[in-house]
């Protein structure tokens, strides 16, 4: 497996776990231009997890930056919609609240 191919598996539930995974992605992105996140092995992902992990990454990098750095693979239709909703809402909040929140959240 390449350093930049991530394959989370099982139950993605808590914000605490999401925060750790997000930090892992941020560390990888310090030495690679992008990461591939393959979601085909997950059993479930909660909105809280999606928000804490991908939502805040979206808030950090902005819409275009996120698209360039995070490439999703293997997401079901429902998971795809969920992640889109949390990302879009984080980005909208970022527009109204300013960029400092994201930095603090990380």
């Amino acid at each position, binding site marked *: 497996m390449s350093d930049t191919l991530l394959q989370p598996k099982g*139950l993605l*539930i*808590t*914000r*605490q776990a999401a925060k750790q995974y997000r930090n892992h992605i941020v560390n990888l992105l310090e030495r690679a231009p992008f990461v591939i996140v393959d979601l085909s092995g997950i*059993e*479930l992902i*909660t*909105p*809280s*997890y999606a*928000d804490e992990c991908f*939502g805040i990454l*979206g808030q950090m990098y902005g*819409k275009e930056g*996120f*698209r360039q750095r*995070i*490439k*999703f693979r293997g*997401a079901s*239709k*429902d*998971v*795809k*919609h*969920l*992640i*889109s*909703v*949390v*990302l*879009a*809402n984080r980005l*909208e*909040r970022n527009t109204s*609240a300013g960029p400092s*929140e994201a930095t*603090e*959240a990380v």
Partner: protein
Amino acid sequence: MPHGDAEAIRSLIAEPYELDPASIETLAVFALQLTAKTRERLIFSALDELRSSTNRLNLTRFLQSMTERDHGFARTLRHATKPGGRCAAAARVVVSNALGTVVTSPAPQTSPIPEPRHGDRLPLGTEGELLLDPSTTSFYALPKLFHALSAAAHQGRDITIRIRDFVYASGLAIVATWVNARGGSSNARPEDGYTSAYLKRIGFYEALEGTDQPIAGDREDWSVRLTIIRPDARVQDVTARILEILDTFVHPSEEDRASFGILLGELIENVNRHAGARTPGFIVAQVYPKQYKLGITIADPGMGIKRSFIDGEVTEYKDWRKSDADFISLALKPLVTSKRSQHSGYGLYILAELIRRNGGTFSVSSGTHTVVGYRVRGHTVEKTTEHAAWPGTVVTMIISLQNKLPLGEVYNSLPLPAGYTDEDFFE
């Protein structure tokens, strides 16, 4: 009676099998013939050597039999369970069970429990008592229970909880949360053996003491015992146990399994991130096989929903004039959150939508109101009841095991902000 007989009694109680009642009675009669000093040495060494649930059961029954015959000995045991007394934590549970009471240590810091409002009356019990029965502990009787707790709180710090007839796990989770939050001592007195056995199986005595316990009991009684909600919560353990129970009755689809995980995960996260309480909240689940239903209750003694919004970051929600019911209804809407930088506001919305589509019922109680939601002939119904104040939040749900929990439908009902599509972040 020579000292050697005390050793024989102790070794019999410690046998790894359940002793029959007649043997227990005989051993108790023999033990009462020992000198007080020998008898105490026998009992406390047996308590120190607790090894297994069978061992605990034998000893509990033995002590019950002894205390029924000798009230002076009951006083000695009661004294030993007090803070600083001779009993270790595990032994205290056994002794308390035998005495039909649970003595809890005062919490170092307590959450404020509101005084009863003008017009509140003691609906149940007598002074210093709280009476629990089916009519106060069921999912449908939460307002009645909140009134009873409020009235009991007014009577003083030491409360006797009388438990009559069978009781529902839902009410027990609320009472355990309340007892831990208010401190003081609480004595639980079930009025019959059947109720006492259920309280033990569901972990009520340990919950009153605020101690952790295994999620699943020794027997297959289709429940998640009263479990303390902690920051790194045992979400996955609780979810796994519920799925294990469900597998006994139905064959949940992959989507149903995911729905349960997400429901529990989101609600427990809510408690961890919103409640801000110093004392524990509890989750409990119980399957009702005849009705093919699963009941889940999550109770916390935290700040409550209104306070969370008032102290939050969103100016438009900071309106003290609105009632608790208004704030509960607000929290049930998608993407509404009190702390935009930290939360996402999906938990209660997903709960409400999943349960409505399942044909089940949910309720959210916070402050002075409870909102109950369900669906009738395709129409969403929400009913609001006012009651004595509960300082935190209680979420309960009754899930039909015959119907699906359509997670995909609920996810797809989450609105995307204008200008976004599902393809924006996916190639």
